[in-house]
């Protein structure tokens, strides 16, 4: 049982890419991410085909999603700068919603050894990368809208005594983002794997509503919300 669990938790090499003699292992995390990206891009293109001022059904879905994200970003960042950050934050939340809940779409038949759709965010490398990207956006926001000098000065605010803490902030923020997401998703993933082992019928359906759907969407929202809060702090 422990071995099965460890097997499910660990990333697996799906294939090895050979780039200029450099052997690059491609794990199932990356492959799952590609699948999610493909789905998202196909959906985005499909839903926004033939846009008109009077929307049809497909366009309505896209508009609801985009407006929801735009409003969230507007609330967090304010009416002046939201437009620059809504696409990135929207991409992150949509990707995380898919990534965190991807295990419920696991319809590919195959045994334990075959490829399975498991949340890529159960791996610390993925979440850390997302968090580092988020903090890069925060730094970009500070430099882009306050200038390099203004951004550097913001380290000494409100008092110069805060300087070390402000510097630490840029390490703590991505670390907390990454670990929160990683821990939540891995925890829910382990619980669900255990439930699948203990009660394979009926119970997983109900419990996955909470552990996969609710927890996944909530963590996606939290990640995006915290990123937007950090951006608005950097813009102040």
């Amino acid at each position, binding site marked *: 049982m422990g071995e099965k669990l460890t097997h499910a*938790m*660990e*990333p697996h090499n799906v294939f090895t890419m050979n780039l200029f003699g450099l052997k*690059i*292992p*491609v*794990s199932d*995390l*990356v492959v799952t*991410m*590609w699948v999610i*990206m493909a789905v*998202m*891009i196909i959906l*985005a*293109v499909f*839903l*926004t085909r033939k*846009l008109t*001022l009077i929307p049809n059904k497909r366009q309505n879905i*896209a*508009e609801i*999603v*985009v*407006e929801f*994200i*735009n409003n969230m970003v507007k609330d967090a960042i304010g009416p002046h700068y939201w*437009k620059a950050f*809504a*696409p*990135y934050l*929207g*991409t*992150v939340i*949509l*990707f995380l919603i898919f990534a965190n809940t991807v295990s419920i779409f696991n319809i590919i038949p195959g045994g334990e050894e075959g490829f399975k759709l498991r949340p*890529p965010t*159960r*791996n*610390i*490398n*993925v979440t*850390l*990368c*997302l968090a*580092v*990207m988020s903090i890069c956006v925060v730094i970009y926001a500070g430099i882009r809208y306050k200038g390099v000098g203004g951004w550097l000065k913001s380290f000494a605010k409100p008092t110069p005594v805060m300087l070390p803490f402000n510097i630490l902030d840029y390490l703590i923020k991505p670390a907390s983002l990454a670990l929160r997401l990683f821990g939540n998703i*891995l925890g829910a993933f382990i619980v669900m794997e255990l439930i699948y082992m203990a009660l394979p019928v009926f119970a997983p359906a109900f419990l996955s509503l909470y552990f996969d759907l609710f927890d996944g969407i909530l963590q996606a929202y939290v990640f995006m919300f915290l990123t937007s809060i950090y951006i608005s702090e950097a813009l102040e």
Partner: protein
Amino acid sequence: MLEPDRYTFIFVALNLIILFLLMRKFLFKPITNLMEERKSSIEQGLKDAENARTEAAEAHKKYDEQMKNIKLDGDKLLNELRAKAAREYDGIVANAKKDALAIIQKGHEDVERERDEMLKQTKQQIAILAIAAATKLVQANMDTEANKAMVDKFIDEAGAV
């Protein structure tokens, strides 16, 4: 799950950037632009409707004023005409009265004149009659002084009538 893996890290970063660019191009930019376009078009439509409403209200006001002016002018004209008609009527009536008075005056004068004429003729007739009677009387007894005086008196009296 916890081992650092730089390839996964790099892959995720590249994937995220590509995904961000594509999502921005295909989903966020067109939809946001479209919604802003729709918002502005709705605002424009509302503004146009408001303008049209204001114009209609103005036209209505103008029309009302014109109607009022026309009514006032009509009333004025009617009053003037009425006054003129009254004046003319008064003038005609006055003339008619004057004419009638003149005619009546003339009638009176004619009647007076005819009466005078008739009186005069009657007087003459009476005088002739009296003279004839007197002649007859005189022929009977014209001698006495008393009779002569009586005849004179009679003639005077007849002349006075």
